């Protein structure tokens, strides 16, 4: 009745069958970690930074930045979740969906869920790539199943949050350029006004003040915490819990908002 399952399967079929879409998505993480890991390597700017508070105790910059790159990659992929809604409207399938006895929110949630699923293999590839490159990711204090769960939860929540926001925006849009315009307007600010690439200590105070409320920071910091420290202390767990809790609360709010707006606002 709800239509969520067939619509999500459709999205995933389209993804896997489009070789360009599929393979560029898989190569992207390798590019990102290799390029960002070198380009922003603060230990090159300040040779004394190694092991200093600037890297929060990480052995090298790649280890420090992995959480940030994972999060931004999730963010960038998620921001395009809405474009499929506009394509469906322009190419006709939306008309079919709207005259079928399915929940209208299923149309939007199918985009969000498939977008979250598409990010998963990218996450795996990125972690492997980061591990394999010279002077790459090092798990100095071990990496437990619990840490993997933290990493996965953070990415899924971030992907869900931004997929929802951009899908909701797209429910009323008919023009592809508008959504690209919005994506371009906010993608770099979301990435740089966060602790994804640099620590608080390296930022202007006003920037750090804003960055601490950016969901990108919450995800990047919780992943960083488990990657650098392995087995966390109780107070570190508390901190990770706060970040993930904030992400979950935001995701839950957006879930309700999306369900409400999609039922009400989605048009042909």
């Amino acid at each position: 009745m709800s239509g969520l399952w067939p619509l999500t399967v459709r999205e995933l079929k389209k993804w896997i069958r489009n070789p360009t879409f599929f393979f560029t998505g898989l190569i992207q993480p390798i590019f990102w970690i290799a390029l960002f890991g070198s380009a922003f390597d603060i230990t090159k700017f300040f040779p004394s930074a190694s092991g200093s508070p600037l890297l929060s105790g990480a052995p090298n910059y790649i280890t420090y930045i992995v959480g940030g790159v994972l999060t931004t990659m999730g963010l960038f992929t998620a921001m395009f979740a809405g474009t499929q809604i506009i394509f469906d409207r322009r190419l006709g399938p939306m008309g079919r969906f709207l005259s079928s006895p399915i929940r209208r929110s299923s149309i939007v949630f199918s985009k969000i869920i498939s977008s979250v699923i598409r990010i998963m293999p990218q996450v795996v590839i990125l972690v492997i790539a980061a591990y394999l490159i010279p002077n790459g990711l090092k798990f100095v204090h071990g990496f437990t199943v619990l840490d993997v769960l933290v990493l996965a939860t953070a990415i899924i929540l971030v992907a869900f949050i931004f997929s929802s926001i951009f899908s909701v925006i797209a429910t009323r849009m008919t023009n592809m350029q508008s959504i690209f315009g919005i994506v371009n307007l906010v993608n770099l600010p979301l990435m740089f006004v966060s602790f994804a690439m640099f620590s608080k200590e390296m930022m202007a105070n006003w920037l750090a003040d804003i960055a601490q409320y950016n969901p990108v920071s919450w995800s990047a910091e919780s992943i960083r915490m488990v990657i650098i420290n392995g087995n966390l202390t109780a107070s570190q767990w508390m901190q990770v819990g706060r970040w993930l809790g904030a992400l979950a609360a935001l995701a839950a709010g957006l879930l309700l908002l999306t369900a409400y707006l999609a039922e009400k606002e989605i048009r042909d």
Partner: protein
Amino acid sequence: MTTIIETRNLTKIYGGHTRAVADLNLSINEGEIYGLAGPNGAGKTTTINMLITRIAPTKGTAIVAGFDIVKKSLEVRRVIGVVPQDFTADEDLTGRENIMMVSQFYDVPRAKARENVENLLKLVDLEDAADRLVRTYSGGMRKRLELIIGLVHDPRVLFLDEPTLGLDIQTRTQMWNYVRDIQKKLGVTIILTSHYLEEIDALADRVSIIDHGKVLITGTPAELKGSLKGDIINLTLSDQKGVDIMKTMPDVIEVADAGPNAVRIKVANADEALPRVINYISSHELSTVKLTVEKPSLDEVFLEYTGRSIRDDEGGADARKMAMNLRRART
């Protein structure tokens, strides 16, 4: 005969004052093909969109297969099939995948859906193309696919909005046969809107002509054509004197000038009147240059009731849509 659709003062007002549909009352019988004809902006599509619960009426309501479109919209959607003007199939999936996906929208059990798909594909001769991506279909094939996608859940009513818009004559005639077949084999009630009045004439059991959101007249195509009370005999003579003599001819409805040396004679039935006209000509020793008989088509009926030709405003949105569909479909 049972009524399957009944509209009760169905009204849609846009922006507080534009009355797209005004107190529309229609009654459609189960199992018939019912045509809705009208110029662009007459309210056809708005009416259909309300009946398929895509938009809500401002006032009034309709009962579709026993369900109120306002109060029971979900139930209505489950018992109707829709074939919109535009292509709605996903080009990146195969024909079969599209049909199966829509079957799932209606919760058709998988085994039943598979069986339906085979039958439907056979019905419109798409078995061979079923596993190809829709992107590779021709315009006619895509229309046929749309037709059966609307039928996956054995609907009681099928809405066909401009089923042959943008297709060539040959493909159109072929589509008509498919539509007739579907009606005959599945017994489904079909609501058909079309720009092509000959299409409605060829397919519909009954037709309503709509303009300014109101029904102007309803009847079988034969009744409507009959209602014009008259066929036309066009006669061109060799001189004006002959024209004057023709105007005195008795037992005709009307004789009017129709250009230089020409008259337009309106008669109840041309087949019966023609011998009398010829006798009259020869008894007055007139010489004729040209003689033609015009039987009214639905186009004339349309002209009579709406005061304009249906072709007048074809440069509008539909034509643009048609051009877009054609560009998208490889023909």
